[in-house]
C-alpha cells in the first residue's frame, strides 16, 4: 500500500470534511452532552447516506471494498467535527470480526446490513479496567452468554455486539444480538458515545472464533479499531491546532496578538509537531493493514494520536484563557472526546504494553 494518498482517497478526505463542515452544529452537540442516551442522528444519517458504513466491507457483501486508509480519512473528518455517534468504529470492528471469523454464513447474514447502515454494531471486549482481559468474566456455553460488560461504546443502541468471552476455559469471540441483552445507560462526560453496561443472562450468541484464533482475532480487531480511532484523534487534534492558531492571531493583549508571544507560539508549534507525528504514524499504520508489521504500527499510531489529542485539547483551552472554559465556546467537546477516545478501545497503558511486547518479545 502506498503512503501517498491517491486521487480517490484525497477526494474522500475532502468530501467527508466538506459534508461534515456543512452539517455539523456545535449547539446541537452541546445539548446532547446533557442528555443521557441520545446520539446525533443527523451525523449518523450523513454517515449512512455517504456510504461510510459500507467503505471497508467487501463488495460481495454489499460494501465498497475499500480499506483502512479510506475509513481512516473519514474518521479524521469525523474527529475534527467531534462526530455524534460511535457506530462507525464499532461497526467496523464487528465487520472485521465477521470477515476474519470462522462462520461464513454469519458474515453473509450481517455484513450487508452493516454496510447499508441498517444494523449498528459495537465491540464489547473490556472488563473492569482491562481493555482485553486475559480470561473474560463473561462466559459462553451452549450458544448463550452470561455476565456483564461495562460501559460499552455504542452499547446503548447498537443492534449487535462482538463479545470477548470465556468458553469453558478457552477464549471465544461471539456475535450477540443485543435485543436479548439488558442495557443500562452510563451517564458519562461524553454522552453521545452511548455508553451502556451490557448484561447478558442466557443471551443467544454465535461463535466467530475460538481458542488461540479468538485471541489473535480480538487483538487484530482492536488494532484496526485503534487505527481508525487514531485517525479520529488526529482529526480532533488538528482541529484544535487551528482553533488555537486562529485565536492567537486575532486575540490581542499587551498591545499585540498573543500569538506573537513565544510562550503561545511555541506551544502552538508543539501542537503542530504532535499532529504531524501522529498523522504520519496513522498513514503508515493504515498502509500496513494485513502485514506482520501492522500491530506495531497500530500501537505507534494509537500512542502518538492519544498524546496529540489529549495535549492539544489541554493546550488549546489554555491558550484561550477564560473563554476557553465556557460551556458555549465548546472546546470542552474536544476535551471530553479526547479523553473518551483515549480510554475506549485500549488506553495508553494497554497500547504501550502491546508495543513493547511486540517489539521486544518481553512481557511486563
Amino acid at each position, binding site marked *: 500500500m*502506498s*503512503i*501517498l494518498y491517491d486521487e480517490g482517497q484525497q477526494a474522500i478526505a475532502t468530501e467527508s470534511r466538506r459534508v461534515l463542515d456543512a452539517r455539523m452544529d456545535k449547539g446541537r452537540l452541546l445539548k446532547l452532552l446533557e442528555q443521557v442516551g441520545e446520539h446525533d442522528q443527523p451525523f449518523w444519517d450523513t454517515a449512512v447516506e455517504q456510504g461510510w458504513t459500507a467503505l471497508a466491507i467487501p463488495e460481495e457483501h454489499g460494501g465498497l471494498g475499500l480499506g483502512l486508509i479510506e475509513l481512516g480519512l473519514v474518521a479524521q473528518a469525523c474527529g475534527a467535527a467531534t462526530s455524534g455517534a460511535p457506530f462507525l468504529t464499532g461497526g467496523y470492528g464487528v465487520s472485521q470480526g465477521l470477515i476474519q471469523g470462522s462462520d461464513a454464513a454469519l458474515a453473509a447474514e450481517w455484513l450487508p446490513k452493516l454496510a447499508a447502515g441498517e444494523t449498528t454494531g459495537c465491540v464489547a471486549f473490556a472488563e473492569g479496567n482491562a481493555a482485553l482481559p486475559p480470561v473474560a468474566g463473561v462466559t459462553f456455553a451452549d450458544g448463550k452468554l452470561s455476565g456483564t460488560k461495562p460501559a460499552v461504546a455504542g452499547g446503548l443502541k447498537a443492534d449487535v455486539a462482538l463479545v470477548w468471552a470465556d468458553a469453558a476455559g478457552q477464549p471465544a469471540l461471539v456475535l450477540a444480538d443485543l435485543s436479548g441483552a439488558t442495557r443500562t445507560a452510563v451517564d458519562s462526560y461524553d454522552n453521545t458515545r452511548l455508553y451502556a453496561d451490557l448484561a447478558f443472562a442466557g443471551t443467544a450468541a454465535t461463535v466467530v472464533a475460538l481458542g488461540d484464533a479468538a485471541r489473535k482475532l480480538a487483538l487484530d480487531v482492536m488494532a484496526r479499531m485503534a487505527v481508525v480511532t487514531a485517525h479520529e484523534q488526529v482529526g480532533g487534534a488538528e482541529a484544535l*491546532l487551528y482553533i488555537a*492558531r486562529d485565536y*492567537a*492571531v486575532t486575540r490581542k493583549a499587551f498591545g*499585540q*496578538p498573543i*500569538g*506573537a508571544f*513565544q510562550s*503561545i*507560539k*511555541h506551544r*502552538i*508549534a*508543539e501542537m*503542530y*509537531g504532535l499532529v*504531524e*507525528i*501522529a498523522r*504520519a*504514524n496513522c*498513514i*503508515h499504520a493504515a498502509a500496513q493493514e494485513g502485514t506482520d508489521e501492522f500491530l*506495531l*504500527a497500530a*500501537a*505507534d*499510531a494509537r*500512542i*502518538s494520536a492519544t*498524546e496529540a489529542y489529549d495535549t492539544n485539547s489541554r493546550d488549546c483551552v489554555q491558550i484561550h484563557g477564560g473563554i476557553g472554559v465556557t460551556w458555549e465556546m465548546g472546546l470542552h467537546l474536544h476535551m471530553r472526546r479526547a479523553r473518551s477516545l483515549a480510554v475506549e478501545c485500549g488506553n495508553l497503558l494497554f*497500547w*504501550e*504494553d502491546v*508495543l*513493547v511486547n511486540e*517489539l*521486544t518479545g*518481553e*512481557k*511486563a
Partner: protein
Amino acid sequence: MSELDTYREKARAFLTSMAPKYAREARVGNTVEQDLALGREYMAAKYDAGFGGINWPVEMGGQGLTHLHKITFDAEEMQFGMPNVFFGISLGMPVPIIMHYCEDKAWVKERVIKALRGEEIWCQLFSEPSGGSDLAALRTRVEPDGNGWKMNGQKIWTSWAQYCDYGVIVTRSDPTVEKHKGLTYFWIDMKAKGVDVRPIKLAGGDSHVNEVFFDDVRLEDSQRLGAVGGGFGVALHTLMIERYIATDSGGFGPHLDEFVKLAKDTEINGKPAIEDGRIRSQIARNHAMRGGLDSITKRAFAMMMAGMQPGPEGSLQKLVAVRSRQKLSELAMDMKGNESLAFDPHAYVKTDWGASWLNAPTGRIAGGSDEVLLNTIAEKILGLPQDHRPDKGVPFNAIPA
C-alpha cells in the same frame, strides 16, 4: 527492482568494500588527525568510484544524478560511520554556493573536485559572539580598500576551521542601514595573512569548533558572492540548500534497539528492567515518536520520487529527535546506576549513553536552536506573527548594543 534500488545496492557494495579500512569499527582509538587522514583517503576513493558530487552537474565535476540518488547514498553511508564528518559542511553549503555565485568557472571546478576528493575543506563563517540565532546582528566589518576590501572582526563556532583551506563569510559592509541590508558575502582563503584560528574545547571534550579572528585581512572584489549589501540573501540561500538531508529519528544518538538491549541486560528490583513499567513506557513513547519521524521521512521521499514537493513537517526532525535523545540518554544512565559514572570522552555517541547525553546539547543548539526552529514552524508554517523586534527598521549603528 527500481533504478533507485539498484543504485542503493551499488552504493552498499561500494561502502562494504570500504568498511574494513574506514568504517567506525576499524577506527576505534584513532586521534582526530588520524581520522582526518583516513577521511581524505576515503573521499578520494569515493570520488574515484563515482559517488562524489552525486547530484552536482557533470560539467562541475559531479555525477549529474538526482537529489534522491544523493539521499539514497547518504542514508546507506550513515550506517557505516565513515570518516566523512570533516567534509559535511564543506560539501553541504560553501561549495554549492561558490558553484552558484562564482564567475570564474574554471577555478570553481578545480575547487569542487579538490573538495569532493577531500584534498581541500571549506568552512562556513556565519555565527559571531554577538549573533548566533540573530545572524544579521553580526559585527565583522569590511571596508573598501583600493580595488578590494579589508576585513576585521571575529567569528565563532566555525566547524573544522582549523583544518580548512577556504571559507564563505558574511560581513557588515554598511553599518548605517538596517541590519539585514548592510551585509556582504565573500569567500576567503583561510591561510591568508591576518586569519587566526583558535579551537574551542567543548563540554564533551572535543574541539571541532573554533573562534576565527580577522586582522586587516585583504579580500579582492572578485571574492565577493552576490551584490554589495546582498549578503543576507546569499546567507539564506546557503542555509536553504540542504533542506532534505538524510535524517536520523534517533537524533544522531543511539538506536532504540540499544536501549532495549540495555533494558534486557539490566535489573531493577530484582527483575529485568524490560519488565518495569517506567522503562516500558519510555520505550513505547520513543518508538511511537521515532516511528512518526521515520514515516514523515519515507513520505517525503515518496513525494520527491513522484515529482512533488515534500510537506513542511520535515522541519520537525531535528527538533523532536535530538531533545528526546537527550532525555532517553539520561534514563539509560539512570538504569545503569553507578555503572554509568565511568565515562570515556572518546566513546561513540551512537553506542554510548554517556557520550550521547553529554553531546546532546550541541545538537539542540547547532543548525538552529530548538527555540528558533519552533519560531520558524510557528511563523512559516502556521502563520503566527513574528516576535516583537525592537531593532526593526533601525540602522545597525543605532541599535543599542
